[in-house]
């Protein structure tokens, strides 16, 4: 790729080495640990599903039974006892789920021959792997069939009614208006639930519960509208919060195409324990990698919390770290939707040039990554006319720097959840700008030593000195001291810490083993 910013290659390489050095001790920690949600994700891949009459999901029932029986039992992996129960009862997966939901305790069954468990588990791994591979193949087939029909960048729209059936109506309309990607926003409390609810849901606040049944309902609706529009419509949800890997597993089984997933977002912005988050993000990314699902990282949050001009380097540093953690989970660059945002104060002189510089810098440093670009939110107001103008500049920067995934800004961002016409105006604006500038990216170069070029060099330099400080401090300590996003998170504080599990010498997780083999992560 030709460069417009002339960033020194040795500086970029140095930043990547720093990211590796920063991540390395964290990855060592991750590999020695599991968590309650990692175990539940493995159970879900094995087929554990359903809920008891109180709504407690079967994967939670199993994990809670093991913890209650003996706090060390989970060190062997929850799949061991689940499969043991299958062998013992001779049940199908569905029958065992019903039995567990009715009160059957898998922790109280003596273990059969390990060989029998290993053999049965291998069958379950094959079943899950075949289903996920089938989903991947179907996606690739449809994307081939409708090749060239999607917008570039992909236009990404959000629905958030709280009711999955109402979401379906809005999503259909959005897709027929031109959206390539539909994200179903989650209800505001879900990231802090240590379980994933079961079944279709019609009640949510500011969004809709992520459940496997809701995934299935929306997937079917988007496939239908996709056939009509002759475009593959990508479906997005949130593998974030306390159930990152479980959501990733459900998404893999139901052919979701993108997952919001950040290596540190939960720690900094949701006060989830740091050890827990690092462990959870890895297994979720391994599943995403196998399912061919694109992750969207959350760097935009650094800019809504802090000043986008002054703290631009924190975005780039986070992109390097997200990339490193993604690679260590087997996720290739083409599935890394690294995030950033158009959030500078609109009254800054030359703000547009700085935004252009930041977006082009991300493009050049991460050339194969489908960058996820977020619209203005912080400075949006009730002045919807100004809001539309700001979104136009945002659309311009996105096309001018060849971004991958473009979350459409809403002119009513600061007023209400979008009306149908707000979404239409957003798509219409983006298509107007992008059609008018189709050849701009290939045609334009930047002045050497101009404002745009100098700004990118300056941000890269600041990023490196920040990463050097983090490397010297250590990532866990750096988070504890508030080096990221100006928030301090104690190592043993935050939500979900009690759900961390030390892997025992006989830890059994055939799904993790399979993913490691398939993704080339075997050491």
């Amino acid at each position, binding site marked *: 790729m030709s460069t417009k910013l002339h960033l020194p290659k040795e500086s970029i390489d140095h930043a990547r080495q720093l990211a590796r050095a920063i991540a390395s001790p964290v990855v060592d920690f991750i590999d020695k640990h599991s968590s309650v949600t990692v175990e539940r994700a493995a159970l879900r891949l094995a087929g554990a599903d359903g809920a008891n009459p109180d709504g407690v999901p079967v994967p939670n029932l199993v994990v809670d039974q093991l913890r209650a029986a003996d706090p060390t039992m989970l060190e062997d992996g929850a799949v061991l006892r689940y499969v043991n129960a299958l062998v013992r009862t001779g049940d199908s997966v569905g029958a065992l789920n019903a039995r567990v939901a009715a009160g059957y305790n898998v922790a109280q069954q003596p273990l059969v021959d390990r060989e029998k468990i290993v053999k049965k588990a291998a069958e379950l791994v094959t079943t899950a792997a075949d289903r996920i591979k089938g989903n991947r193949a179907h996606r690739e087939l449809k994307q081939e069939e409708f090749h060239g029909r999607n917008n570039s960048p992909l236009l990404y729209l959000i629905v958030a009614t*709280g009711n999955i059936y109402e979401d379906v109506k809005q999503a*259909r*309309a959005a897709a*027929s*208006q031109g959206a390539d990607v539909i994200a179903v926003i989650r209800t*505001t*409390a879900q*990231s*802090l639930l240590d379980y994933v609810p079961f079944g279709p849901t019609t009640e949510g*606040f*500011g969004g809709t519960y992520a459940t496997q049944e809701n995934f299935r309902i929306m997937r079917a609706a988007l496939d239908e509208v996709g056939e009509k529009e002759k475009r593959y419509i990508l479906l997005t949800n949130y593998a974030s919060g306390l159930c990152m890997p479980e959501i990733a597993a459900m998404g893999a089984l139901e052919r979701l195409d993108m997952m919001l997933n950040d290596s540190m977002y939960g720690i900094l*912005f*949701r*006060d989830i324990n740091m050890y827990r988050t690092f462990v959870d993000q890895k297994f979720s990314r391994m599943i995403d990698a196998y399912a061919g699902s694109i992750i969207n990282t959350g760097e935009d949050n650094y800019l*809504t*919390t*802090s*000043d986008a001009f002054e703290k631009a380097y924190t975005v780039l540093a986070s992109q390097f770290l997200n990339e490193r953690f993604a690679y260590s989970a087997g996720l290739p660059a083409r599935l890394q939707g690294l995030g950033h945002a158009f959030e500078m*104060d609109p009254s800054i002189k030359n703000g547009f040039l700085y935004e252009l510089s930041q977006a082009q810098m991300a493009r050049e440093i991460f050339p194969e990554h489908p960058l996820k670009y977020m619209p203005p*939110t*912080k*400075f949006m*107001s*009730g002045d919807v006319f100004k809001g539309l103008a700001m979104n136009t500049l945002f659309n311009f920067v996105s096309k001018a720097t060849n971004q991958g995934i473009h979350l459409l800004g809403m002119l009513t961002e*600061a*007023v209400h*959840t979008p*009306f*149908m*016409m707000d979404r*239409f105006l957003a798509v219409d604006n983006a298509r107007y700008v992008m059609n008018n500038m189709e050849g701009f990216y290939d045609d334009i170069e930047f002045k050497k030593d101009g404002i745009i070029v100098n700004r990118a060099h300056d941000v890269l330099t600041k990023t490196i000195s920040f990463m050097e400080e983090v490397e010297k401090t250590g990532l866990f300590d750096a988070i504890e001291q508030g080096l990221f996003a*100006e*928030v301090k998170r104690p190592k043993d504080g935050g939500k979900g810490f009690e759900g961390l599990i030390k892997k025992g010498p006989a830890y059994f997780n055939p799904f993790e083993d399979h993913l490691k083999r398939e993704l080339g992560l075997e050491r």
Partner: protein
Amino acid sequence: MHVVRPYGDTMDDGKVQLSFTLPVPNGAKGREAARKLVLSWGFKECEVVHSTVLADDFSMYVAYAKTEQSIDYDSVVADEASADASMDMEAVDAFIKEHIGRKIVVVGACTGFDAHTVGIDAIMNMKGFNHHYGLERYTGIDAYNLGAQVPNEKLIDYALKVKADAILISQVVTQKDTHIHNMTEFVELLEAKGLRERFICVAGGPRIGNKLAVELGFDVGFGRGTYADDVATFIVKKIVEKQKA
């Protein structure tokens, strides 16, 4: 009496612009339906200048209309706590030094399940918003921003621990009146503990009015367009008022 009407380009022309969606196909019939609908709202003239298809059986309209309705501007009373005469940061700090003589303590959070910190951050974070510094920057204020999804109970415990003068509650999500339930619960909790008079209680959010907040038992409510200056001014004046009482 000071009678006013909407102004287009001539005094008293009564011109307004409207845009809306109808669940019907786009076309001549849809445009006529839109025009008649606007007239049924009491407008005297209506021109539908644009219509477009949004989806199957949905279409959008842009219309200009004329109203003969007017209002006596002198009869209007505004429901806004953000006084036009709020002090800026330096003035608030000077006021604290002169009239209170100690640092004041402010605790704030997005309570309940609300995860949107943009409002509380704009008021409290060092940086502030739109060139108005946040409360953390004030030399006379110890400010603690507890962030999002803080249970009411925890917020009150924290306020007691740091001996807060004022508690700020930010509520952004208002779907299904969740903010009203949450704000009510907060005040009831304080009252149950006999602590309501111990703190100055401030509510804020894009859809929080002063009237609503006061009805729910808060001292004040701040809506759209509020800065840290407005909140700080209210708190310091209220502290002095309580000292005198």
